[in-house]
């Protein structure tokens, strides 16, 4: 697969079809992968593909990265789950389909965090999304690299995130509040969750609006709660459960729980899952006379 990927990247750069290939490469000690930006065909051999390729590179397609956009038309190495984010970016008019070449990688799952890798991909070091993945064969891609995966996700989603959501749903509102206040109390306001998120592409985040300061920047319980809840709300109907925010969080706040819960709420209310169809707009940005109004009591 790696060979095919490198050849494809080389070809795209040589023909001038794209100016940059956004992919994964090794760090110095070959123990971790990290994003790389290949602009010369002779550098295409730096590209790698393996279960350590966890990053969702579609963040680099957003307008937060003007200097990457300035390089010219990109090709992006993307797993099926990453492509779902590109699809959301397309439906939200952030990226035009024809402006990006998607090199889709068939995927057998990745590690939850790279430091867990001991040379073998076992279910216990994979994120919940991988166990329930319906896009191991990338859907919206210009090229697909790798053999077709025959994996079918379980009918009822399984994994730690789903188990924990059930446990939290069973709590009383007071218990639930205490749970989240406890989790958010660790927040250090580094905004890694926002920066790593392909869907947090605002050039001026609400936390940066300081006349007045809408969201308190203080890392005290009130400031942490307002930040984390505001961000969660901004992702409703958009988040694809890629898990980057939780992976990036330096203090282990279980953001996947919140995001997956939102996904379930949206699915119940609108029968909508984000990132599968670039022609359908997310429910929160359209009004339909058929929208359920059951919440009005």
């Amino acid at each position: 697969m790696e060979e095919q990927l490198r050849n494809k990247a080389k070809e795209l750069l040589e023909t001038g079809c794209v100016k940059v290939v956004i992919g994964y490469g090794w760090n110095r000690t070959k123990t971790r992968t990290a994003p790389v930006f290949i602009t010369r065909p002779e550098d295409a051999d730096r590209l790698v593909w393996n279960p350590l390729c966890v990053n969702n590179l579609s963040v680099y397609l957003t307008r937060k990265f003007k200097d990457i956009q300035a390089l010219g038309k990109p090709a992006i190495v993307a797993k099926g789950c990453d492509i779902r984010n590109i699809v959301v970016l397309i439906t939200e008019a952030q990226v035009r389909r024809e402006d990006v070449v998607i090199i889709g990688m068939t995927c057998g799952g990745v590690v939850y965090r790279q430091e867990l890798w001991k040379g073998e991909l076992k279910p216990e070091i994979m994120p919940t999304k991988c166990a329930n993945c319906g896009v191991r064969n990338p859907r919206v891609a210009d090229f697909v690299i790798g053999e077709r995966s025959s994996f079918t996700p379980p009918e009822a989603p399984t994994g730690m995130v789903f188990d924990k959501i059930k446990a939290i749903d069973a709590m009383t509102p007071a218990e639930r509040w205490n749970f989240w206040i406890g989790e958010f109390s660790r927040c250090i306001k580094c905004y890694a969750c926002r920066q790593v998120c392909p869907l947090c592409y605002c050039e001026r985040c609400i936390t940066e609006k300081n006349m007045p300061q809408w969201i308190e920047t203080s890392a005290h319980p009130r400031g942490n709660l307002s930040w984390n809840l505001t961000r969660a709300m901004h992702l409703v109907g958009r988040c694809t459960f890629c898990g980057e925010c939780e992976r990036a969080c330096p203090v282990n706040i279980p953001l996947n729980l919140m995001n997956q819960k939102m996904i379930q709420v949206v699915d119940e209310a609108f029968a909508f899952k984000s990132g599968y169809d670039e022609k359908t707009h997310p429910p929160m940005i359209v009004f339909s006379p058929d929208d359920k109004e059951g919440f009005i009591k």
Partner: protein
Amino acid sequence: MADGFLKKDDLNRLRASVAAKGGRFVAPVTVARQTVFKETAPSDEVALGYILARNSYKEFLFPQTEAIAEFSIHRQGVELRGKDADARDTVIFGARPCEAASLASLRAVFTWGFIDESYTKREDKTVVITVACTSGDDACFCTTVGLSPESAAGSDVMFHETDADGWLVYAVTEKGRAFIEAHADAWSAAAPEDAVARTLFMPPVIAGVDIKKIGERLKKKDHYDEPLWAELTRKCIGCGACTYVCPTCHCFDITDEGAAFEGERRKNWDSCQYDSFTLHASGHNPRDAQWKRWRNRFMCKFNFYPEKFGSKGCVGCGRCVRVCPVRLDITEVMEEMSKRP
């Protein structure tokens, strides 16, 4: 010759002794699957088998958020009431030599021109107990920046682990000696005979890195805008994780919080990695691309700190490397910078 010996079982006696004198005891404890410096409650179990706490203990000297004044707005005008730093006797237990070395750098910044008493008063009341490293990981690089697992700079008391289920205790500063004497009940004056200091973990020096050359290179203005910066750091996503875990990063912002007519003026950590950090009121931003912000952090570590204060900007703790969501490894940039003419 050690100044004493503390049995691991007696650590709680030391904690109780500190608490009895009204001090707070900050130590690594396990929180959400991580080892974290925290003000311990008597029920907290101090973590012992860790490499480095996730956070730097700087937050106990330079809190992440701190009210520096209160204000209220009346018909007659604005009333501003300053708040003094609540500086308490503090013991930091379980620091590592790398982060201990950062205190001189923080002090240099907070006493440069203006004396920031909210820092100095806290630091004056803090005793740092450093435990020399017997383990490490591939992100540790203290030896590359001229430190080692037994460097004593910044520590008041140094502990060395032994196989006799305890630590050899050494006073480093006068403050440390006074601390040892004040809590004499907690430790035994003499170490048992079999208490031999364990071998320390020495991270390999990264051969390609030449700190002096990096410093010289950063002084040359024609390197400031070279494309190399963008090539090396393009993947930076602009979060502030590296700066918030860094023991020498010290930037903060002043913000007003509260209701319309009363509130607090707070001093909050800020990060040079945010695009709003240097955004001017005019809309102009001198650091308008992420690589320029990353360059600033690198300059701060290897040019500003050494040139302005003669102190270390980077202590090689590796926290920024471990925490980076895109694995932007500062040592890889250091290596590239050492290679270039």
